[in-house]
């Protein structure tokens, strides 16, 4: 880390023309355990544009949740943010270099809840069981926004109504355990949005819910996102949810981003072999019945080991020996909007591969369509 002040350092990167709400740069989160080091997040660089929803997809253990936790500086021990930079650009106020603050500092507390909020898979991680829902929301509002109790109560009722909770006035005195699962999820969202954050981190918020409840929650989140104009980092493993919610998608594998694309481009043409394999392995309504599903061969490597070269190469159907197992590809643009970290698209020196991917059918390599099991 550079020794300049947090604000000054952040301003330098603010000069880009894109209006981002947060920028992560080469973020590393390591878990030091007795059995070895788990590199949960291993060099993630990611920007979230203001007012957009960025989806992060990946399988369990790929580091998608830890990326979100790192932004809040809430990585659970023995995890530590060992390197990287996180710069937050609040709507009102100067940019903030988040990692310059101690995780327990007042500044960090002001960021959490004030500018960045988080919702979880399990609502009871965010809701305190011994206080009524309304009290908790009012407390957050009083802490960050206003000192007038009446106004805070009015706002709490307002936000509880917005997340679709019936009879919000009565809910002010309702305890979390009196609510059903879906209702608790709504209450947690209300709590997270009570201070109109710039950025909402959503960590698998619908994974534990039934499909019909999930659909309701997704509707609420989409409506509120449009209304408040906040950005969302939406972490999930469900590609359907991503397709419904995200504007941009980042695909993670073993702590690294392997592909970034606008959501439509990603679903139109997934480029990274892992993204392709992941999409094909999931059955959905309308896929041929009883036909064999495509599988990603092999399993995740041991969490303590580091795979040389591209992390996906041991399971990759189109891995190129001598290249993918030796060198680590970097995330590089393939089209103006799509970035992929794969040697199918760019050479070792970073130049694009001779045949442009959109038009080509060069005969030098095996066509990808054949190489992937159909």
């Amino acid at each position, binding site marked *: 880390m550079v020794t300049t002040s947090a604000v000054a350092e952040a301003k330098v990167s603010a000069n880009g023309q894109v209006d981002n709400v947060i920028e992560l740069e080469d973020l590393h989160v390591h878990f030091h355990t007795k059995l070895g080091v788990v590199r949960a997040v291993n060099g993630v660089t990611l920007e979230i544009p203001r007012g957009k929803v960025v989806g992060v997809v990946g399988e369990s253990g790929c580091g998608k949740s830890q990326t979100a936790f790192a932004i809040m500086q809430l990585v659970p021990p023995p995890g530590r943010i060992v390197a990287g930079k996180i710069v937050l650009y609040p709507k009102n106020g100067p940019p903030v270099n988040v990692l310059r603050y101690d995780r327990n500092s007042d500044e960090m507390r002001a960021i959490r809840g004030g500018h960045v909020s988080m919702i979880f898979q399990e609502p009871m991680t965010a809701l305190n069981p011994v206080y009524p829902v309304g009290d908790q929301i009012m407390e957050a509002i009083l802490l960050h926004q206003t000192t007038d109790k009446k106004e805070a109560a009015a706002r709490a009722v307002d936000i509880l109504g917005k997340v679709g909770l019936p009879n919000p006035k009565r809910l002010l005195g309702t305890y979390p355990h009196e609510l059903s699962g879906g209702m608790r999820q709504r209450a947690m969202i209300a709590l997270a949005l009570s201070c109109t954050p710039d950025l909402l981190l959503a960590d698998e918020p619908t994974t534990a819910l039934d*499909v019909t409840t999930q659909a309701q929650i997704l509707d609420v989140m989409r409506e509120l996102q449009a209304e408040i104009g906040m950005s969302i980092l939406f972490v999930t493993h469900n590609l359907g949810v991503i397709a419904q919610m995200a504007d941009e998608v980042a695909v993670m594998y073993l702590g690294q981003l392997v592909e970034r694309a606008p959501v439509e481009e990603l679903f139109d043409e997934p480029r990274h072999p892992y993204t392709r394999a992941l999409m094909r392995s*999931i*059955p959905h*309504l*309308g*896929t041929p*019945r009883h036909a*064999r599903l495509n599988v990603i061969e092999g399993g995740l490597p041991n969490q303590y080991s580091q795979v040389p070269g591209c992390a996906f190469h041991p399971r990759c159907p189109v891995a190129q020996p001598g290249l993918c197992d030796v060198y680590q590809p970097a995330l590089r643009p393939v089209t103006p909007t799509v970035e992929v970290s794969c040697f199918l698209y760019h050479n070792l020196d970073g130049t694009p591969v001779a045949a442009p991917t959109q038009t080509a059918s060069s005969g030098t390599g095996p066509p990808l369509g054949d190489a992937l099991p159909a």
Partner: protein
Amino acid sequence: MIDTQRTRDDGSTDRSDRIGARNLLEVTGLKKHFPIHGGLLGRLRGYVRAVDGVDLFIREGETLGLVGESGCGKSTAGRTIIRLYDVTDGEIVFHDPMLGKIHLERAGTAELRRVWMSMQMIFQDPFSSLDPRMSVGRIVAEPLVVNKIARGSELRDRVAQVLTAVGLRPEHVSRYPHAFSGGQRQRIGIARALAMSPKLIICDEPVSALDVSVQAQVLNLLEDLQNEFDLTYLFIAHDLSVVDHISDRVAVMYVGYVVEVAPTEELFRNPKMPYTEALIGAIPPPNPRLRSRPVKLPGEVPSPANPPSGCYFHPRCQYAQDVCKVERPPLRQVSPGHYAACHFAETLSLRGIPTLTSAVPAVTMATASSVTPTPAAPAVP
């Protein structure tokens, strides 16, 4: 396996020839109520009607999917059918290959132990379903040892055989479950169920706890095993996509009873019960261009301890009439093989897959059968 069966135009496999005409299992009016005790003296306060009148049958060799949201009683139904729970009311008739026709609802312990040789179960949680203190070999061998089917080298051979069948290495017998990943653990659980060469396997959410890429492996394995060992599955799941993929017929449950049963294709294309329509409509399609949901389902699943009057779905149903509030419609045949519990099954025109998820160009990528020609792999530098 797959080659032996015809593949239809849409890439689905035609399995009509492998499904027998005989029923293997018939369940009629199955009920399982759990008492609620409360108060200082633990007096009986009422019942949770977890399963409240399930009717279904399973033909030999087929896969019947049983879907529903959490709390609808699908797992309880599965566990009651295999008699891990006692039956409150109703009939379970199992046509055992060795014992013949058996009424499971009144079978005693000894009889059940014999039935369990041909009726087994695969569990959801790959962690809690394997005894952490037992080696893989002992886990898989347990049914063979307890029932005195095999011992010594015969036992070892049989264990190695089933482990190989599920894609594990026979050398793994001495390892303990914690050394395996979730997917591998699920294979161990499948091997244990297979050890006795059962006819019917009740799969209780077998892939729900697995990572997406591992799900596909286990689903493929289940289909392979079904073909190889001529198995019949009752496949319980909440994920409609998975059920759609693996089932020949699908039964939909809502608050303790079956509201619709039909062949898979028919059910998803042409649902006859509004709840099925809502369930299909709630699945987020993996298509970013398809973001408006034509069917919205308000409200929440009612508590099985205190279900609504009449049709349990009527408070959430947009088509509900007065009769729905009073009378619970029975499950009846609407068209050949298509059963629905709705007063207006014939008259309603409900939307299934074609209207909800068709015209989906983006899905092609994810569809195994129609992979878009992908750009050629570039030259290796």
